[in-house]
């Protein structure tokens, strides 16, 4: 384990080069790109929710544009099949499956929009109010009449919509609509953190002591936005042995230190924007000091890797103990996460939530002999149950954990929750 780390790893194809190459390739090379992304995911060369989501959305955009189909079911089953393979390649990157399901939802919506609406048998006023009740928060247009997912409508509607033959629709219009929808998803991925940060001043008061953990671009932007107007203190637990390098480098704000180019590429952060330069007092603590400090902390703000359908978190290892310590001290826990991290799957569906990382990270060179006499365990993720979280802030606003299931219902079609079969 330790000896492997001595070998320098050649520059892995990063997200940027993947996205660049995906736009250039011929239609015939698309299956090869699917395999390429699968291997990038397997080898963890593209990792993290945002990066995997961006890669998946770009890939699916190309798949949709390159594929010729006569019947819409063909493209749906093709994307489901790609989704199955991608999620199997890296089950813990839930964002991959989320994007696949969003795209499937788009396709279904396009098809339904394309079919002529049935004549409404209700007064116009009722229709409007019902429609607005069903409109999603994400700025997605309100559900049209006859959409199968609006169960309330199908109950009220006296003339159930006859099933149309979908093959009759022009696939060209549908294709353009789908592409537009995927572009909107990519747009959402790039603006989510900014939208979340916009509410920072509603949650951080002056002179507050905030505790956070590890390294999250979303949290960083949230705190930086609040720092423009208010002065407060941030305590950061370093997340040893998996996150401390990034945490230390970002705090030092030194773009020249080794590894920073990689981080900058990962996160699109400039190192000019550090929390300390924004005027905040930042206290870096070892993970062991969290409980000792918690009695003075006003709020815990955490980023997360993913959010499960029940409002639980799959977050960096250490998050569960921190949120438990916060509960013990009656300190509120706020989770900031883009809506693309919300997944329709439940925690028991996530294969091996507690992924094990490189045990070599947990022991030093001179302790290499320890590995012979004992078993070294280094977990990467914690599952945090929803009752440990007080508030979620997504790009759609602030929500209680109990409300997340609604957002999940708005984002994903029930028929796409399982990608199998």
């Amino acid at each position, binding site marked *: 384990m330790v000896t492997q780390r001595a070998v320098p790893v050649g520059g892995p194809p990063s997200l940027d080069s993947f996205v660049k190459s995906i736009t250039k390739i011929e239609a015939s090379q698309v299956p090869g790109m699917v395999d390429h992304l699968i291997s990038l995911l397997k080898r963890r060369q593209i990792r993290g929710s945002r990066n995997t989501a961006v890669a998946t959305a770009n890939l699916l955009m190309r798949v949709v544009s390159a594929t010729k189909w006569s019947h819409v079911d063909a493209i749906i089953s093709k994307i489901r099949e790609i989704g199955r393979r991608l999620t199997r390649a890296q089950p813990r990157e839930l964002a991959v499956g989320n994007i696949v399901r969003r795209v499937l939802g788009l396709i279904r919506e396009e098809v339904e929009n394309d079919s002529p609406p049935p004549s409404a048998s209700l007064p116009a006023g009722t229709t409007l109010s019902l429609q607005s009740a069903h409109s999603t928060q994400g700025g997605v247009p309100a559900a049209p009449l006859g959409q199968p997912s609006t169960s309330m409508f199908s109950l009220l509607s006296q003339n159930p919509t006859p099933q149309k033959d979908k093959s009759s629709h022009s696939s060209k219009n549908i294709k353009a609509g789908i592409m537009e929808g995927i572009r909107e998803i990519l747009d959402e991925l790039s603006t989510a953190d900014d939208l979340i940060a916009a509410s920072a001043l509603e949650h951080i008061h002056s002179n507050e002591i905030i505790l956070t953990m590890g390294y999250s671009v979303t949290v960083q932007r949230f705190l930086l936005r609040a720092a423009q107007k208010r002065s407060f203190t941030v305590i950061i637990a370093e997340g040893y042995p998996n996150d401390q390098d990034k945490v*230390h480098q970002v*705090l030092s704000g030194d773009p020249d230190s080794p590894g920073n180019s990689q981080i900058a590429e990962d996160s699109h952060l400039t190192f000019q924007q550090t*929390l300390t330069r924004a005027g905040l007092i930042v206290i870096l603590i*070892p993970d062991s000091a969290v409980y000792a400090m918690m009695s*003075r902390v006003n709020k815990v703000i955490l980023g997360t890797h993913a959010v499960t359908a029940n409002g639980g978190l799959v977050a960096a290892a250490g998050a569960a103990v921190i949120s438990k310590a916060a509960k013990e001290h009656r300190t509120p826990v706020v989770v900031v996460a883009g809506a693309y991290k919300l997944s329709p799957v439940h925690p028991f569906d996530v294969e091996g939530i507690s992924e094990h990382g490189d045990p070599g990270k947990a022991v030093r060179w001179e302790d290499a002999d320890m590995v012979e*006499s004992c078993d070294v365990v280094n977990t990467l993720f914690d599952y945090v149950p929803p009752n440990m979280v007080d508030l979620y802030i997504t790009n759609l606003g602030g929500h209680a954990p109990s409300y997340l299931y609604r957002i999940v219902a708005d984002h994903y079609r029930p028929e796409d929750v399982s990608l199998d079969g």
Partner: protein
Amino acid sequence: ASKTVDPAFHHLDSTKEVALFKHLEDTKKKREISDGLVPTEGIHPSVIALGLKMITYDICGSVARLVATLLAFKQVILDYTTPPGASLNRDLNHHLSPQIQYLNAARPNATAVRNAIRWLKVEISSSPIDITDSEAKARLTDRIDAFIQEKVMAAGRVIAESAAEKIRDGDVIVTYAKSAVVQAALLEAHKRGKKFKVCVIDSRPRFEGRNLARTLGTAGIDTQYSLITSLNYIMTNMNVTKVFLGAHAMLGNGYLYSRVGTAMVAMMAKDTEVPVIVLSESIKFTDRVQLDSIVQNERAPESELVISAEEEGDASGGLREWEKVKNLQLLNILYDVTPASYINTIITEYGSLPPSSVPVVHRLSTGT
């Protein structure tokens, strides 16, 4: 004459100090001692050597510090001669004071050490007046040896044995960092042929658990090692049956003052309904009380948190320049306080008792 401070010698300016902990002794004194900038006139060589070993954590646990301190003071006593016109039972305590202060500057004296010093001072002042210097010194060194035998060696053995009795075949035991008496208990249980597994939880920057894990693993105990970020996984997936914790001090309100991180392990154990068992000699008991980890603690040098290139194969060394980063502060405290409500049992040489009995045992053992 005191040495002038070398201008190149720099310490932290006040903006680098965490405001919440400014009331605690800063680490300047430690560095001055290790750099030889503190006048050592009148300090016994064995005390100076001990102070340096404490700063480097070569002697780290509170019981180890207690034994080393008493042995050093034994040397001080043997090399002492009562000045003419003075009596040993009054003057020797004056002679010891600067030695105690020197050690306290190296590292704030542990509760166990303070208890032992209080005992020694009483012993000295109750020296009979009608005996010679050498007789009085022989009496004191004998008492010191007996004290170490009784309060440390025998007590440790009794605790290790009664803790080993509590271990059953198939147990999965979690422990944090390294406690000498916990290690003794686990080795004792292994010697008795018990089949159990130990999960050692550890943390930066001292990694004391690595020593324990290596010792247990080499002894043939099924040992697992992980850092405190993996604690939730261990407590929820490993079918843990018991948590054994060491103590730096047992406080009068039943709270446990121990290596920073201990409270988190005890908290998770309480949450997962695993019994938390503290192993502590009664010499560590104190009537001091504390509710949080901030009013009273020990600050260690912040520089310990900087990861050196040697320590980690692929380290970025991102903190090496931390002192130049304005507004960035590092916090390196040594202890935290675990609420009594997380603790099920404390095993002492007097038997097993609940946290509420700490003051009772303290009165018993000090005879007050």
